[in-house]
C-alpha cells in the first residue's frame, strides 16, 4: 500500500518533477525576458507552464492505472542531520495525483482567465508593470502547491505549506499600495499571514512530535508504524493530531482561525478563486486525508475535527447570509464548504471530503471568476461613466451587490455560468455539488444525528444565500449607473468560465454513486469506507435547498431592491440580529480585545525598560570602549597607502624570520 | 507693385517713420539706426520676412553724410518677396545694434561688415575679424582705404620691381 522501493517502476513516473519544474521554467522565462515580451506573451507562458503541469499530471494518471499503488520518485538528497535523512522526492499515488489534477486543471483555467482579467485590472489600478509580477507569483504558487501535494515527507510538505502561505500573502497584498487608506490590502495580507502562522506553529509542533515518536518524517516510514507507536504512547497520537488540526484550522480557515479568509478577498479575483477557494485552503483537508492513519489511531481527535468542521460550516453560512460584498459572500461560503470537508474527514469519510474538495474547486472557482467578471465590467462601466460625465459621481464600490442588479440581460454568459455555479453550490441535482455534499451529509446521517442536523441547516442557508445573491445581482433593475452601463466580458474571460461551468455540471461523475470510482481509486492509498447512496437523505437535502431558494425568491425576488441605498429586506425583519451577523458576530473585535491588546502591552514592556534601558546600556558601553581604543589607534592611519604597505612588508619579514629560526 | 508689399511699406512708414526708395521694382526702406531692431522684429514676426539673406554696407565717403548705409536684404519664403532695409550711419564711429537675436544668420554677416567697413555692431556676441588676419590694421572696403596694389611689371621696370620685391630664403 505504501511506498515500494521496487525498481520495476514505470518510466512514466519519472516525469513527475516536471510538475514543479515547468512552472519554474515559466517563472524564469517571465522573470528574465518578461520585460520585453509583452502582456499576452507573459500570460501565455505562465498558462502554458501550468497547462504543462496539468498534462504531466495526466501522464501520471495514465501511469497510475497500471501501477495503482504508486511510487516515490527521489530527485535528490536534501539534507542529513543525525538520524534525520530528508530526501527531496516526489510521491506519486492516487491521492496526490487527484490533487495535482484538480489544482492544475483549475489553475490552468484561472491563469487563462487572468490573462484577460489582469490586463484590465492592472490598468484600472494604474500600474501595468505589475502584470508580469502577478504571473510570476501565480506560477510560484503552483510550484509550492505541487511541492505540497507531491511531498513524500512531512518536511517537504511543510515547505510547500509555507510556500503557498507566502504566495497567498504576496498575492493578497498584490495591490499593496491600494485599498482603504492605502494600507487595507497590505493589512489584509498581513492578517492572513499572521493568522495562518499561528496554525503553522501547531503543524510544526505536530511534525516535531512525529519525528520524536517515529524517528523519521517519511510517510512511508511513519504510516505503517502508527499502530505500534499508538499502542506505546496513546496520548502522543492525540497531541500530534490535535496540533495538526491547529495547522488545518489556520490553512483551511476553520474556527477559530478563519478570520483571515474574508479579508483575503483584497487580492485580485483570480487569486481568490485559485488560492482562497479552490486549492490552498483545501490543503488542510488534504493533509488530514494524507494523515488518515494518524487520525484513525486517535478517535478523540477525530471527534474534535468533526465538530470543528460542522460548526464552521453552519457559522460561516450564517454570516454569509448577511453580507453585501459579492466576494465576501463567496468567501464565507468557502469557509462553510471547507467546514463540510473537515467534518467529513472527522466523520471518517475521507473520500467524500476529497470528492467535495474537487467539485468545490470547480464550482467555487467558477463563482469567484464570474464575480470577477462582474466586478470588472462594473469598473469598466464606472470609468466610461466618469469619462462621460466628467465627475466622480459614479465612483461606487464595484463589489457591493447593492450597487448591481439587472445584470442578467447585460451579461448573459456570466449570468448563466453563475447560475450553474450557484445551483451546484446549493446542491441541486444532478449537478456536481449535489452528489459530493450529499455524500458528506449521508456520512453524518450514519454517524451522528446532531452533526447531520447542523450540516443540513448549513445546506439550507447555503441555498438561501446563493439565491439571495443571484437575485440581488442579476435580477431586478440596475440600481446604479455603472450597473446599467455594464457589458459582457471578453471571450478570454468567459471561455474559462464556460469550461468550469461544464465541469461543475458533470463533475459529479467522478464519484457517481455505484458507478465510479473515486473511492476505488483512492483505496490504493487510504482506507476507505464504502459509502452508500441514501435516497431519503438525498431527497431531504434537495428539497431543503429548493425551499431555501424559494424563500430567497420570496424575500428578494418578488420585490427587488429599489435603490442601492435601500435596506436589505431581511434586515428590516430581523433588525439588530442582521446587523450583528453583518458584522460577523464581532469576532475580529473579540480577538483584538482578547489577544492583541495584552500582547501590545507586553511588547511595550520589553521595548522600553528592558531593551532601551538594560541592553542598550551594555551595547553603548562596549561601543564607547571601542571608540576610545579606535581614537588612540587612529594615529597609525596616516592615509598614505605606501606606509600601510610598509607595515605589511614588515609583517612578512618578521614571519619569515620566525619560519627561519623555528627549526 | 505687389499689394502685400505695399501694405508692409505703409505699415512700416507709419510705425517707424521709414521712407521708401524704389528702383527697378526693388523697394528699399530707409530707417534710422535706432529703429533697426524693432523694425526687423516686426518684419519677421508680423510680415513673415523670415530669412535674412545678407547684411552689407556701402561707404559714401566723402560725398555724403551720413557716410555709411548698412543694408539688410530680407526674403519671405511664404510670400516669395524681397525687401531691402537701409540704415543710415554716421561717419566717424559708425555703430548700430546687432540683429543677431532676430536672425542668427546675421552673426557672420555682421562680423564681415565689421571687418571690412569697421561698423560696430552693439551687443554682438563674437565681434572679431573674420576675413582679415586678426592683427590687420584698417578696414579694406572703406573708400579711404587704398587698394594696396603693387606696380605691374613690364620690361622697363622689371629690374626695379624685382629689386624691391621680397624674396624667399630657403
Amino acid at each position: 500500500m505504501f511506498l515500494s522501493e521496487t525498481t520495476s517502476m514505470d518510466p512514466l513516473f519519472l516525469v513527475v518533477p516536471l510538475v514543479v519544474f515547468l512552472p519554474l521554467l515559466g517563472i524564469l522565462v517571465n522573470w528574465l525576458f518578461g520585460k520585453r515580451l509583452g502582456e499576452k506573451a507573459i500570460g501565455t507562458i505562465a498558462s502554458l507552464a501550468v497547462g504543462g503541469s496539468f498534462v504531466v499530471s495526466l501522464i501520471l494518471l495514465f501511469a497510475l492505472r497500471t501501477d495503482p499503488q504508486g511510487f516515490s520518485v527521489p530527485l535528490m538528497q536534501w539534507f542529513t542531520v543525525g538520524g534525520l535523512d530528508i530526501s527531496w522526492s516526489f510521491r506519486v499515488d492516487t491521492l496526490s495525483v487527484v490533487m495535482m489534477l484538480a489544482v492544475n486543471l483549475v489553475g490552468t483555467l484561472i491563469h487563462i482567465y487572468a490573462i484577460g482579467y489582469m490586463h484590465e485590472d492592472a490598468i484600472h489600478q494604474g500600474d501595468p508593470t505589475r502584470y508580469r509580477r502577478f504571473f510570476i507569483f501565480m506560477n510560484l504558487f503552483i510550484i509550492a502547491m505541487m511541492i505540497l501535494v507531491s511531498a513524500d515527507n512531512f518536511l517537504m510538505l511543510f515547505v510547500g505549506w509555507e510556500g503557498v502561505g507566502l504566495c497567498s500573502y504576496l498575492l493578497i497584498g498584490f495591490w499593496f499600495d491600494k485599498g482603504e487608506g492605502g494600507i487595507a490590502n497590505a493589512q489584509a495580507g498581513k492578517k492572513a499571514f499572521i493568522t495562518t502562522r499561528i496554525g503553522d506553529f501547531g503543524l510544526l509542533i505536530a511534525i516535531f512530535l512525529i519525528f520524536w515518536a517515529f524517528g523519521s518524517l517519511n510517510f512511508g516510514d511513519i504510516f505503517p508504524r502508527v499502530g505500534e507507536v499508538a499502542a506505546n504512547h496513546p496520548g502522543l497520537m492525540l497531541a500530534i493530531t490535535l496540533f495538526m488540526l491547529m495547522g488545518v484550522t489556520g490553512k483551511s480557515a476553520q474556527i477559530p482561525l478563519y478570520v483571515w479568509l474574508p479579508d483575503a478577498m483584497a487580492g485580485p479575483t483570480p487569486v481568490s478563486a485559485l488560492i482562497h477557494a479552490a486549492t490552498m485552503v483545501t490543503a488542510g483537508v488534504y493533509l488530514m486525508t494524507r494523515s488518515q492513519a494518524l487520525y484513525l489511531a486517535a478517535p478523540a481527535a477525530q471527534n474534535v475535527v468533526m465538530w470543528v468542521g460542522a460548526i464552521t460550516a453552519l457559522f460561516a453560512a450564517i454570516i454569509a447570509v448577511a453580507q453585501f460584498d459579492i466576494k465576501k459572500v463567496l468567501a464565507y461560503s468557502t469557509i462553510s464548504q471547507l467546514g463540510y470537508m473537515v467534518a467529513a474527514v472527522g466523520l471518517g469519510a475521507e473520500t467524500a471530503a476529497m470528492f467535495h474538495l474537487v467539485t468545490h474547486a470547480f464550482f467555487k472557482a467558477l463563482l469567484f471568476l464570474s464575480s470577477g467578471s462582474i466586478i470588472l465590467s462594473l469598473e469598466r462601466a464606472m470609468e466610461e461613466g466618469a469619462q462621460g460625465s466628467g465627475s466622480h459621481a459614479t465612483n461606487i464600490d464595484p463589489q457591493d451587490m447593492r450597487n448591481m442588479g439587472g445584470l442578467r440581460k447585460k451579461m448573459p454568459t456570466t449570468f448563466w455560468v453563475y447560475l450553474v455555479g450557484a445551483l451546484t453550490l446549493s446542491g441541486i441535482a444532478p449537478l456536481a455539488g449535489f452528489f459530493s455534499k450529499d455524500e458528506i451529509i449521508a456520512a453524518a446521517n450514519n454517524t451522528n444525528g446532531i452533526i447531520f442536523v447542523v450540516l443540513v441547516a448549513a445546506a439550507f442557508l447555503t441555498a438561501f444565500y446563493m439565491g439571495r445573491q443571484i437575485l440581488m445581482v442579476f435580477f431586478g433593475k440596475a440600481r446604479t449607473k455603472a450597473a446599467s452601463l455594464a457589458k459582457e466580458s471578453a471571450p478570454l474571460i468567459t471561455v474559462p468560465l464556460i469550461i468550469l461551468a461544464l465541469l461543475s455540471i458533470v463533475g459529479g461523475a467522478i464519484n457517481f454513486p455505484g458507478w465510479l470510482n473515486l473511492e476505488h481509486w483512492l483505496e490504493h492509498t487510504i482506507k476507505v469506507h464504502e459509502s452508500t447512496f441514501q435516497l431519503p437523505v438525498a431527497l431531504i437535502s434537495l428539497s431543503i435547498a429548493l425551499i431555501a431558494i424559494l424563500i430567497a425568491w420570496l424575500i428578494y425576488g418578488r420585490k427587488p431592491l429599489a435603490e442601492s441605498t435601500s435596506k436589505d429586506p431581511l434586515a428590516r425583519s430581523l433588525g439588530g440580529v442582521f446587523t450583528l451577523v453583518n458584522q460577523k458576530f464581532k469576532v475580529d473585535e473579540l480577538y483584538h480585545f482578547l489577544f492583541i491588546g495584552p500582547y501590545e502591552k507586553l511588547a511595550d514592556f520589553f521595548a522600553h525598560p528592558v531593551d532601551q534601558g538594560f541592553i542598550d546600556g551594555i551595547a553603548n558601553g562596549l561601543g564607547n570602549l571601542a571608540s576610545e581604543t579606535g581614537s588612540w589607534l587612529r594615529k597609525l592611519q596616516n592615509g598614505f597607502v605606501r606606509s600601510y604597505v610598509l607595515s605589511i612588508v614588515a609583517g612578512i619579514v618578521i614571519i619569515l624570520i620566525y619560519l627561519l629560526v623555528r627549526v | 507693385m505687389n499689394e502685400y508689399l505695399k501694405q508692409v511699406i505703409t505699415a512700416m512708414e507709419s510705425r517707424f517713420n521709414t521712407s521708401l526708395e524704389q528702383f527697378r521694382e526693388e523697394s528699399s526702406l530707409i530707417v534710422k539706426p535706432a529703429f533697426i531692431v524693432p523694425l526687423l522684429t516686426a518684419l519677421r514676426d508680423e510680415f513673415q520676412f523670415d530669412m535674412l539673406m545678407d547684411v552689407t554696407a556701402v561707404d559714401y565717403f566723402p560725398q555724403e553724410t551720413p557716410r555709411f548705409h548698412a543694408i539688410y536684404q530680407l526674403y519671405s519664403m511664404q510670400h516669395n518677396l524681397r525687401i531691402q532695409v537701409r540704415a543710415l550711419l554716421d561717419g566717424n564711429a559708425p555703430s548700430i545694434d546687432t540683429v543677431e537675436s532676430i536672425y542668427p544668420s546675421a552673426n557672420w554677416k555682421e562680423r564681415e561688415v565689421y571687418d571690412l567697413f569697421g561698423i560696430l555692431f552693439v551687443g554682438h556676441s563674437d565681434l572679431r575679424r573674420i576675413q582679415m588676419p586678426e592683427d590687420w590694421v584698417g578696414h579694406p572696403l572703406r573708400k579711404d582705404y587704398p587698394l594696396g596694389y603693387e606696380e605691374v611689371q613690364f620690361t622697363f621696370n622689371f629690374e626695379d620691381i624685382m629689386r624691391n620685391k621680397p624674396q624667399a630664403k630657403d
Partner: protein
Amino acid sequence: MPTSFFLALSAIMFVLGILGVLLRRNALVIFMSLELMFNAANLAFVTFANQYQLLTGQIFVFFIMAVAAAEVAVGLALMVAIFRNKGSVDIDQLNSLKG
C-alpha cells in the same frame, strides 16, 4: 642548472617589486610593480612545476594571469576615474583614508 637559480631570480624580482610599491609615488608605476611581483610568483610556480613534474604549477600561472588581467582592468579604470577627480596619479594625494 639548478632550479634554485630560477627561484633566486624570482625572489629578487619579487623584492624589486616590493621596493617599487614602497618607493614610487606614481600610482601607475606602483601598479606595474605589482605586476612584477605577480610575475616573480609565476616564475616560481613554473619552476616548481618543472621540479615536481606536475602541471598544477603551470595551470595556476594561467589562473594568476587571468586574475591579473581582471585586476588591471579594474585598477586602470580606477586610475582613470581618480585622475578625472584629482587631476593627478600621485598616490600620496589619495590620503582621505587618514584617520
